[in-house]
């Protein structure tokens, strides 16, 4: 069965009434979970998984997959409206999305996020459908040294995430790296910086950290503004993106899609890394990068496209090799296995109805999500009309509930509040949260792949420079690091 007839067959499976119902339920739940901070797709799918034991496998998998990519749509909403990332993959969207909302452009930001998600999700699916097999072979080429090199590349983009002092961005990145080391050593299980606190054994949770640094810190900031009466009245100018918005966002969407599609196939990389890289690249290629962090629509379009494209293409290693590239798909693998179906090279031959049915349902799901999300925009924008003294306590309340709901653990609330205060102090002094989050997310992967590589090479650093992919990524990141120095030297010699 070639890709086209496969797709037609898949669509015919997906439009069966019961499957349409499951697509809708999955997308609806996904949007909801994405909007609510704290509750992530892993928790939601794990909770729903046992309920699907009785369902037909295709229905169950279509629904659970719908939750996964639906979350990528909903996650941007709270990032844009109140600076609280709904998911880790939406942290970057806060940077420019929230600034747009403050300028009364929440509608265009939400609209571009929804359309970018649709565009990228669909293109990612085309990639999944046509190039699943060759792409999955590339994914396997990434061993520990390649991951280490790739993450080094991610680190070299870190300063692009800030719009203030580069030095301060580096300080925050180092702080993030140190914080990511808290917990049991990933290889030998020895305690590190836990101070004997059991709750720190698994390390600091990324969701309470991000919610604290962005959401809670924002609430504190606004409290100050409220009490001093120094409040900016937001005037909502328009609800949907203008022609200028489209022109500015168009190529950002395309680049975000490309980056997301590529990074999505890598086990361990996934949507989060894709959003950071997409934003960094966008700022790098922009004609006037100083607009970023002050409400540039490209800064919303690109990461929101990237996370949806990555969500689509992350199905490639999953369906063709049976390897789940992230935790959400690991849970989905469980959903397959409890029904006695094993994703992998044989899936498309043994269960064509399931493979093509899932792909077909994802095309439909992306349409469903746009239809679900667009009418909601005028409603969401009304949130900004709520007076600050009511809105910000509500935001704080949602953050508290969200942080608690992750593990039902009060400790996570404590972590969130502490980082809320840290975030507030940092912001007052011109230190930004995004570089900290990025290195906090990358840190553990950076460390464990570094150590695994050196175990493989028995301590020789040559392993990072003798494998082609690793070497390429290393040269590229060295180039990125050298570029500003080169520019600086160029300026000086001209000055002389």
């Amino acid at each position: 069965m070639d890709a086209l007839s496969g797709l037609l067959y898949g669509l015919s499976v997906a439009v069966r009434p019961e499957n349409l119902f499951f697509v809708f339920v999955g997308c609806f739940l996904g949007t909801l979970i994405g909007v609510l901070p704290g509750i992530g797709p892993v928790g939601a799918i794990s909770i729903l998984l046992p309920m699907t034991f009785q369902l037909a496998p295709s229905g169950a998998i279509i629904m659970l997959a719908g939750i996964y990519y639906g979350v990528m749509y909903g996650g941007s909403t709270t990032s844009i409206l109140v600076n609280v990332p709904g998911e880790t993959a939406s942290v970057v969207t806060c940077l420019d999305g929230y600034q747009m909302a403050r300028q009364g452009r929440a509608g265009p930001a939400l609209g571009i996020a929804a359309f970018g998600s649709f565009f990228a999700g669909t293109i990612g699916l085309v990639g999944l459908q046509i190039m699943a097999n060759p792409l999955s072979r590339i994914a396997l080429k990434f061993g520990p040294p390649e991951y280490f090199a790739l993450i080094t590349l991610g680190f070299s983009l870190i300063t692009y995430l800030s719009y203030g002092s580069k030095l301060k961005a580096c300080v925050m990145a180092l702080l993030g790296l140190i914080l990511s080391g808290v917990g049991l050593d990933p290889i030998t299980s020895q305690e590190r910086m836990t101070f004997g606190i059991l709750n720190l054994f698994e390390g600091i949770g990324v969701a309470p950290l991000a919610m604290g640094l962005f959401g809670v810190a924002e609430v504190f900031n606004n409290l100050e503004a409220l009490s001093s009466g120094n409040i900016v009245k937001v005037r909502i100018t328009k609800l949907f993106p203008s022609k200028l918005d489209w022109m500015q966002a168009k190529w950002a969407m395309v680049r975000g899609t490309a980056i997301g599609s590529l990074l999505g196939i890598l086990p361990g990389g996934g949507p989060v890394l894709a959003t950071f890289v997409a934003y960094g690249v966008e700022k790098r290629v922009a004609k006037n990068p100083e607009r970023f962090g002050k409400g540039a629509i490209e800064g919303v379009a690109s990461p929101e496209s990237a996370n949806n494209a990555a969500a689509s293409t992350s199905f490639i290693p999953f369906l063709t090799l049976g390897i789940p590239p992230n935790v959400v798909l690991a849970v989905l693998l469980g959903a397959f296995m409890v029904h006695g179906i094993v994703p992998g090279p044989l899936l498309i031959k043994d269960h064509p109805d399931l493979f093509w049915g899932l792909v077909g349902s994802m095309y439909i799901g992306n349409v469903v999500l746009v239809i679900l999300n667009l009418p909601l925009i005028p409603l969401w924008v009304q949130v900004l009309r709520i007076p600050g003294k009511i809105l910000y306590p509500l935001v704080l309340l949602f953050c508290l509930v969200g942080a608690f709901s992750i593990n039902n653990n009060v400790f996570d609330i404590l972590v969130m509040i502490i980082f809320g205060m840290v975030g507030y102090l940092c912001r007052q002094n011109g230190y930004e949260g995004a570089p900290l989050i990025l290195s906090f997310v990358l840190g553990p992967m950076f460390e464990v792949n570094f150590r695994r590589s050196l175990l493989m090479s028995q301590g020789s650093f040559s392993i990072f420079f003798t494998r082609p992919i690793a070497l390429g990524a290393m040269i590229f990141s060295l180039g990125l690091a050298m570029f500003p120095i080169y520019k600086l030297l160029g300026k000086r010699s001209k000055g002389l």
Partner: protein
Amino acid sequence: MMKKSAGLVLVIAGGLWLSFHVIGGSQAMAAYPERPITLLVGFAPGGSMDLSARSLAKAVEKVLGQPVVIENKPGGTGTVALASLLAQNNDGYTLCATPSSVLIRVPQMQKVPFKPLKNFRPIIGFAEPPLGIVVQNDAPWKTLKDLVADALSHPGKIKYATTGVGSTTHAAVEEIAVKEKAHMIHVPFKGGTEALTALLGVHVEFGALTSEFIPSVKAGQTRLLATMGDKRSPKFAGVPTLKELGYDFVNDAVFGIVCPSGLSPDIVKQLEAAFAKAAKNEQHLAILDNLDLVPLYYDGKQFEDFLKVNWKKINAHLIATGLIKEAATSPE
């Protein structure tokens, strides 16, 4: 649906009956479980420990009449979940599903913040994961003997992936390495899926893996050289066990559920009975079969004895093979 709602009505009615009749002293105890129970799992979602625990949790929900919520706390080769179990209130509302290896093998090789044979009270042992040594399908080694011979003639060339330092899979390869005096490079991963990915990408020469390898063997991506059970696996009757090949190693990892010791005996009894019944649930057994796990049944006492006997066996074995001088954690 009918059946479920009828069950719900029964549970509510039962609960009401209890609350009306046992007013006073032991109200809370008599009503157990009156709210959802959390079952900690020390490994990431999607692995065989996680999936089998979810399946058993689903079956035991019907017996106990309360939701059993899975909470994954991966890390530290599974010890993080056990440590955090001890940090919770010991009221029967938090339990932990763990492979026995995390109680009796890992603590001998690394210092852990609990006393494995003293701090926990086993409730049930319910399944055994198949373990195996696998290579790429186009690898030159047809038997384990070929692989070992290559390792001997090229010291340091053969790299292998396991599910973590001190895991049962790691110990199995160490047993081979020590006996053959072979120098091989250990690359530990976090769980079976990551380790399998490294093998499929040829970043290591072989993998000592938990049941995650089975689909790849069936799909012809990998080749199984040996299993680690006491007897040959019925699904791979043509593949020898390590024991048959002359290595003193048998899988000592049994999936079970434990609570902190000191939990009220009434609740322990109730849980033991509920899990024993749930372990016979047909849907659960079908899921175990889909996951390629071998079902078994130990009650709390039997599982406790199994742990004690195997702690000593593993201890003697680890010392004899030179992996440790003494257990890193004292058992009691």
